[in-house]
C-alpha cells in the first residue's frame, strides 16, 4: 500500500499527513506535486489541508482543476480510496467528487479546537473502524457545509453522511456545531463510499501526545482497502 500525499502551492498539512501515515500507521507514502499528470503506482490518495492557491477565488477552486486532481478524479471513479481533510475536503467538493460546498463559518470566526463527531454510517472503509464518538481537532475559517435540500435528502437515503458534529456525550445541540454546517455535517462520502471529505484533521490525532488517537480509526481506511 502506497499513499500519494498531494501537494499544492499553499498546502500546509501535507507533512502532518505524511508523518501520521508513515510513522504512526506504518503506511508507505510519498508526496505528489500538483503538476504531476500521473499517480500510477499509488493505492490511495490523501488530499491535505492548507490554503491551496491562497484560497483565491474560492477555497480549493484552482487546486481542484490541477493536473493531479484530474488523475485523482479518474482514480476515484475506478474505486480508489481518496481522503480529503479540511482544504482537501474543499478541493474534493470543488472537483465534483463530493456533493455540496464549504462556505465561510456562520459565526465568521476561524475555529481551532477539538470537536466530537458521531460516526453516522459503517458502510465505508473510512468509517468502518472509526470510534462511535470521535474526538478530533478542527482548524478552519470556511467549513460551513452546504448542499441543496434535495441533494441532502438523497445523501441521507444513500448513507453518504459520514460524520456529524456532536457534544461529548454524542448528542447534537446548538453548541456542538462549530461552523453552522447544514444538519451538523462534518464529513461526507461519495455514493460508492471510496471518497471521504471532512473538515476535521484525522492526521492530527494519531498519537496521545497530540491530544488523541481517534484519527487512526479513519486513516485505517487505507489499510482496509488493501486487506479487501
Amino acid at each position, binding site marked *: 500500500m502506497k499513499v500519494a500525499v498531494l501537494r499544492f502551492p499553499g498546502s500546509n498539512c501535507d507533512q502532518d499527513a505524511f508523518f501520521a501515515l508513515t510513522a504512526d500507521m506504518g503506511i508507505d507514502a510519498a508526496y505528489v506535486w500538483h503538476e504531476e499528470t500521473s499517480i500510477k503506482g499509488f493505492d490511495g490518495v490523501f488530499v491535505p489541508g492548507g490554503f491551496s492557491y491562497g484560497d483565491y*477565488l474560492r477555497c480549493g477552486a484552482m487546486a481542484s482543476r490541477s493536473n493531479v486532481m484530474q488523475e485523482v478524479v479518474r482514480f476515484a471513479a475506478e474505486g480508489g480510496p481518496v481522503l480529503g481533510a479540511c482544504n482537501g475536503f474543499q478541493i474534493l467538493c470543488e472537483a465534483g467528487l463530493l456533493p455540496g460546498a464549504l462556505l465561510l463559518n456562520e459565526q*465568521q470566526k476561524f475555529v481551532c479546537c477539538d470537536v466530537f463527531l458521531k460516526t453516522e454510517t459503517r458502510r465505508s472503509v473510512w468509517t468502518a473502524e472509526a470510534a462511535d464518538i470521535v474526538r478530533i481537532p478542527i482548524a478552519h475559517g470556511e467549513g*460551513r457545509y*452546504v448542499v441543496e435540500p434535495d441533494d441532502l435528502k438523497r445523501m441521507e437515503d444513500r448513507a453518504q453522511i459520514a460524520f456529524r458534529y456532536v457534544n461529548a456525550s454524542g448528542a447534537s445541540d446548538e453548541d456542538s456545531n462549530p461552523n453552522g454546517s447544514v444538519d451538523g455535517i462534518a464529513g461526507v462520502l461519495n455514493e460508492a463510499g471510496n471518497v471521504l471529505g471532512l473538515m476535521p484533521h484525522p492526521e492530527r490525532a494519531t498519537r496521545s501526545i497530540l491530544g488523541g488517537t481517534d484519527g487512526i480509526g479513519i486513516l485505517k481506511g487505507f489499510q482496509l482497502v488493501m486487506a479487501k
Partner: protein
Amino acid sequence: MARISQTIDVARAQILVTLKPSLLDSAGRTVAGSLQNLGFTEVSEVRVGKLIEIELAEYSEARVKEMCEKLLANPVIERFEIKEIV
C-alpha cells in the same frame, strides 16, 4: 472603477458572482453589523459578491459563460452575470 488597462483595442468582460440568495452570507452579515455600528442604522442586510474583469482578444459570451461554469463560479453556491464592457 478603474480600467485594468488603458489600451482600447482589447475586449473586456465583467462577471458578477454572487452567493445564492438562499444561502447565509456570513461576510455580508459582518459588514452589515459594521455599517450599523457606524451609524447607518437604515442598513438591514448586506450581501458581498465578487467582480471579475477579464481582458480578451475578442469577446464571446459563450466562451465567457464556459469560463464561469468551469472555474469562475461554483453552481452549487453561486450565481453569475456576464457583461461585455464597451
